[in-house]
């Protein structure tokens, strides 16, 4: 393996790029190895060589030079890092060709190279190392080759350091830390294959965590009930925490890659990665079973692959690597969205940048209409269709993984519950599908708020006079009861006939039919009349009719209105049909008011007849959950029958799409309690790091894990954002007056970097001001990552364009070194709180409390 020592590229001192120099700035930027291999070079000299030296070297060895020449050529065209940076390209190409005279007349074909060679070159993507190794292995048979490929040692080193910082003592502490208490629950659900509903995000992130548990052989048996609880021995803490830690570690080299793809110097790229490396908050967050680091990883991956894609756009559209990066962009975006909903903001950002680029593409008159169309279609497929498909796929996997019923069932509709194994499915399995006259049914309210409940009645009657002095009909109460009960059974009766059994063959009830509902246990008829309901005086009271012989006739006819019918003669189906019961005499609709009755109503929920029904509302819609055909004519037998469990054997499955839609809807509408938390904070506190979160405290000592950022990085990143905005605004105004301070290519680079980094920060931060849920400091981390990327961009810009003399520049460099060591020092000081490995004395902890708003826990002895 060849160690390639990266060198700081020569600076572009003038206002315009290189004058006759081979390496224009953009090239120089590309000169830095970018994680892909350079040409195979076999001499020792070459190891330390600059590029010129390598070229010279190459000239000395004509037969082996073909790949090298190609490589240089590719680099020379390397203005592609900067869109529209046309200027340096032709000269660079010419010079390249002079540097590398055509061996065997092959590399002359720089622009029109042989297809085979080209393909060979193109296949070098991420797997380039591997492929090349393989290629070498083949070559090894022919020549005694010593060196294979040069691997960017920077990337390797960064990855290693990232891994070290994230994986070190990963399974410590062996206790539940902060939000692990939530995610752990979900992992357990996955392990036990129990259905759950989490309104906080799509299932992909949970599944990734669960994958760690699966690989570690976790059986899901752990009670996640309290932060700080010791893990039992069956919990594979290391493998559960591995995935977030890996993604966190990989974010470090990715920061490097992104900046170099953006066309910034390798120094800046290195700086960005090193800043990511020593950011305490990122380390803390990625060492635990939490999803932020995974989200950040996919965010960065999306940006990186988009950059790679748009860079290869300038080179070779529709090449395999072009397709690869384009698709990877879509996949990474959908993964980010799949981990947490906030990933959607990064997705939108990438879409917007892609949209602008596509718009330029449309304006490119050199392309034919057809090729423009192809470009657009390819982008639409990769950036719109692929993510949507991936998103569906996550849910598909999720739903096929969690197929057992569990504690979250109640929120879902009956049909959904019936599709889960166990639970409702066990009860409803094999019920007859079509409700017929004589059917015994339980009716569940579709709204399910405040609690899911079933239409219910019991012997007790409404009190004659309510507390507030109003009178009632004193008839039997009808309520909605949140528990399964024999009193929830009703019999559907044909008003024209007397029997309460299903005839043979069964006569199904259809939309628009008029029915009576008979309460199974008391054989009274569901009735409503013009009497004010107990708690909602604007609606009618619903009762089971008791004949007191007081000139109050029974009004017990109901017309069936199937809301989701296929046709007007649709049949009333168990579970699937959502019906409204419209009272024939008063056209009131049976409705769950949601109010709790007082003690006389046993605190059950009130059911009313709503006269002024305004269209469709879920509280007026009911569905049959349990159902069987009644067989007993006699009341006694029927009571026995009602008590017996239902049993039948037809299996009904909801289609995946219907299940997905319902699950998605419930997730989005799941109520998040906007309650205050001890460590919750407002977005304004985040920028200045005026808040912190205590994650874990050692049960005996004062070793603790605390989410705290590296103050130096936070402050300077915020400053950089402000500086960027001001500079951008200033340049914009100047350019508007046709005063160009920056050469075109560095201007475009500057804008693109800003759009991605500053834009990434803004889209991941600003929306939180509009969110009403409980917010924590860790919500800021994705935004912070982008801000950290912006920091070196601004610094390099200042050093390149604003420091006019060499002296100033060296001064600035010295300042930067001092500043970075300062950041390192802060990292080191806060390290005990990040890893939680060292117990500090109270006075040391007090000394660490730099801000009053940091709630560092200090044990009292």
């Amino acid at each position, binding site marked *: 393996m060849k160690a390639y020592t990266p060198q700081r590229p020569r600076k572009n001192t003038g206002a315009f790029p290189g004058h006759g120099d081979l390496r224009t700035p953009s090239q120089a930027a590309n000169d830095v190895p970018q994680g892909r291999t350079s040409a195979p070079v076999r001499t020792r000299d070459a190891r330390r060589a600059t590029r010129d030296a390598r070229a010279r070297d190459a000239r000395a060895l004509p037969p082996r030079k073909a790949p090298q020449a190609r490589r240089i050529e590719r680099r020379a065209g390397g203005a592609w890092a900067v869109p529209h940076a046309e200027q340096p390209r032709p000269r660079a190409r010419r010079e390249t060709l002079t540097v590398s005279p055509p061996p065997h007349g092959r590399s002359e074909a720089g622009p029109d190279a042989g297809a085979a060679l080209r393909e060979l070159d193109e296949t070098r993507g991420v797997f380039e190392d591997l492929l090349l190794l393989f290629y070498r292995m083949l070559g090894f048979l022919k020549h005694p080759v010593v060196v294979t490929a040069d691997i960017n040692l920077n990337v390797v080193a960064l990855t290693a350091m990232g891994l070290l910082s994230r994986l070190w003592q990963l399974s410590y502490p062996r206790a539940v830390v902060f939000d692990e208490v939530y995610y752990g629950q979900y992992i357990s659900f996955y392990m036990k294959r129990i259905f759950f509903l989490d309104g906080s995000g799509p299932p992909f992130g949970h599944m990734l965590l669960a994958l760690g548990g699966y690989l570690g052989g976790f059986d899901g048996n752990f009670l996640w009930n309290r932060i700080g609880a010791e893990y039992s021995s069956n919990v594979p803490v290391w493998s559960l925490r591995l995935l977030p830690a890996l993604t966190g570690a990989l974010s470090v080299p990715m920061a490097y890659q992104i900046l170099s793809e953006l066309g910034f110097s390798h120094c800046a790229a290195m700086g960005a990665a090193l800043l990511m490396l020593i950011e305490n908050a990122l380390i803390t967050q990625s060492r635990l079973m939490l999803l932020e680091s995974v989200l950040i990883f996919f965010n960065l991956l999306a940006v990186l692959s988009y950059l790679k894609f748009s860079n290869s756009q300038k080179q070779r559209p529709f090449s395999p690597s072009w397709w690869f990066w384009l698709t990877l962009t879509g996949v990474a975006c959908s993964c980010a969205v799949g981990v947490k909903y906030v990933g959607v903001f990064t997705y939108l950002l990438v879409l917007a940048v892609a949209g602008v680029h596509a718009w330029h593409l*449309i*304006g490119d008159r050199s392309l034919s209409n057809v090729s423009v169309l192809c470009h657009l279609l390819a982008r639409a497929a990769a950036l719109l269709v692929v993510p949507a498909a991936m998103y569906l796929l996550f849910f598909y996997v999720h739903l096929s993984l969690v197929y057992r019923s569990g504690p979250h069932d109640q929120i879902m509709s009956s049909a959904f519950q019936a599709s889960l194994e166990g639970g409702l499915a066990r009860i409803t399995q094999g019920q007859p599908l079509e409700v017929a006259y004589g059917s015994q049914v339980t009716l569940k309210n579709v709204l399910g708020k405040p609690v899911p409940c079933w239409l219910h009645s019991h012997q007790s009657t409404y009190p004659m006079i309510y507390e507030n002095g109003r009178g009632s009909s004193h008839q039997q109460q009808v309520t909605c009861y949140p528990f399964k009960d024999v009193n929830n059974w009703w019999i559907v009766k044909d008003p024209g006939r007397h029997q309460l059994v299903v005839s043979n063959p069964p006569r199904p009830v259809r939309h628009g039919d008029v029915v009576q509902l008979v309460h199974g246990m008391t054989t009274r008829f569901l009735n409503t009349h013009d009497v004010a309901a107990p708690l909602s005086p604007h609606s009618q009271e619903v009762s089971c009719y008791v004949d007191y012989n007081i000139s109050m006739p029974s009004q017990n006819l109901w017309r069936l209105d199937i809301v989701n019918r296929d046709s007007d003669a649709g049949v009333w189906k168990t579970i699937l049909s959502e019906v409204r019961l419209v009272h024939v005499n008063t056209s009131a609709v049976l409705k769950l*008011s949601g109010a709790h009755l007082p003690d006389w109503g046993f605190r059950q929920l009130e059911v009313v007849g709503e006269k*002024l029904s*305004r269209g469709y509302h879920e509280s007026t819609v009911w569905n049959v959950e349990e159902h069987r055909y009644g067989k007993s004519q006699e009341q006694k037998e029927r009571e026995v029958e009602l008590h017996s469990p239902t049993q039948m054997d037809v299996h009904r499955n909801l289609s995946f799409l219907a299940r997905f839609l319902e699950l998605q809807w419930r997730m989005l509408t799941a109520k998040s309690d906007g309650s*205050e938390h*001890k460590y919750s904070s407002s977005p304004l506190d985040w920028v200045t790091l005026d808040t912190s979160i205590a994650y874990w405290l050692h049960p005996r000592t004062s070793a603790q894990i605390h989410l705290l950022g590296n103050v130096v990085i936070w402050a300077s990143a915020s400053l950089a954002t402000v500086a960027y905005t001001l500079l951008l605004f200033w340049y914009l105004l100047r350019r508007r*007056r046709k005063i160009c301070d920056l050469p075109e290519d560095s201007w475009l680079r500057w804008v693109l970097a800003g759009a991605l980094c500053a834009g990434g920060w803004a889209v991941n931060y600003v929306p939180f001001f509009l969110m*009403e849920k409980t917010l924590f400091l860790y919500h800021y981390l994705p935004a912070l990552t982008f801000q950290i990327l912006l920091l070196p961009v601004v610094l390099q810009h200042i050093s390149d364009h604003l420091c006019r003399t060499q002296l100033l520049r060296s001064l600035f460099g010295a300042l930067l070194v001092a500043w970075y060591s300062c950041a390192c020092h802060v990292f080191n000081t806060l390290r005990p709180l990040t890893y939680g490995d060292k117990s500090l004395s109270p006075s040391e902890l007090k000394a660490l409390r730099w801000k009053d708003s940091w709630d560092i826990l200090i044990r009292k002895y």
Partner: protein
Amino acid sequence: MFFIMAAMLSMVKYNSCANRPFSAPWWFWLSLTGVNLAGALGVKFVGLFIILQVGWNTISDLWHLFGDLSLSVVTVGKHLTARILCLIVLPLTLYTATYAVHFMVLNKSGPGDGFFSSAFQARLSGNNLHNASIPEHLAYGSVITVKNLRMAIGYLHSHRHLYPEGIGARQQQVTTYLHKDYNNLWIIKKHNTNADPLDPSLPVEFVRHGDIIRLEHKETSRNLHSHYHEAPLTRKHYQVTGYGINGTGDSNDFWRIEVVNRKFGNRIKVLRSRIRLIHLVTGCVLGSSGKVLPKWGWEQLEVTCTPYLKETLNSIWNVEDHINPKLPNISLDVLQPSFPEVLLESHMVMIRGNNGLKPKDNEFTSKPWHWPVNYQGLRFSGINDTDFRVYLLGNPVVWWLNLLSIALYLLLGSIIAVAVQRGAHLPAEVEGLTQVLLRGGGQLLLGWILHYFPFFLMGRILYFHHYFPAMLFSSMLTGILWDTLLRLWAWSLASSSLARGLYVVGNLSLLLGTAYSFYLFHPLAYGMVGPLAQDPRSPMAGLRWLESWDF
């Protein structure tokens, strides 16, 4: 709506004067825009959106001018100043002037006083704080009222009712109450002595920052008390109760009084000191969650003791009334707040009030997506078939045409934009038309978007009529679109007479169709009597095109 349209009109007018900057009509229209903006904002806060639109237009206009190298920087500066003057300074002046008039006219104390801060009340005549004179520094034995600093929370209050069973300890309720009441009075006492500090033999002792005190409710002689029971609504906080008999309670009655942003040893100033009350035993802070208690609490607001020591306005109080016969009174004239403060405060109260308009359970609400579809109307009066019924519903023909036009516009606009971007060559006439379509139409589309989409983000209760301003914009867009379409079509036909004929016929048919639909639906607006529309005998029988219209 009038002001919105007027602002739009004058903006367009002054845009068309752009070739003669600084001429009289230019100035006239520019300042008229400003006046109308102030009017729009002054009538309803929705006027904010038209300000955004005008602002956007102005910025792009300035950007354009700035890029024009034939103009010197000084000229551009002049343009900028003119716009700042007319579009920012002028409307703001007018807007504040309306408020000045508002405050001048309404200078009497009224039922809404409790919503405002003490200082605000001091300027309302009839309020007991108006020209009042009270002792300046808080002393032991004083009778005080304590007001939460957050607006619309009110005074610390207690009354002879206990918390119901099952909700914390069954002790006397402590709430906040917006109105002035004898039950808002508390006596401030030392924690360790029960001697009457008003005894003339004792010297006056002032309360200082950091003192441990006890607050005794004057009417019921119970102490302000807190303990480790969860609060009735905010479960993570502690319950606050009234406890003890005749002022004798336990150590849970002790509170440390702290002045925010002051040093130790300072006295506590009435009205101006912002104080926090920290419970000594549990270390929590007295605050109000702002949540309304259920019936047992008389729908007053919940008071809790929060264990979270974050400084929020909810947990900061000030002393408002202060009665202590042993202390000299001083006049409160110093308290007169300045006009900007008053303005700011009244806005804060309004915004809070606006956000407070949350839909109640089961109350009828309409969702923003209902509006452009004309999904549901609003019943203004009358329910039964014998009543005189007025039903607020848009003319469905117009509304659906608008909806269609927006979709069509987006399609056409993007096609044209792509064509232009691809460098397609358009004939001069078409070029002109597309310019109108893209510029003018874009302007209107922006108006529609600005007046419509923000409602999706609003948490408050929304009504159908909130869509009306957006509807105006979308109707204008429809006009432009169809006019352009017909012209294009006419232009594509060869003979000029046929083209003219087509244009006229097209326009006429659109107009007549609209007029006819107005005739069909006019009973909704002017009121109707007779059977409901479900009934085939009703005159509206055939017109219930959507299930959800319930006229």
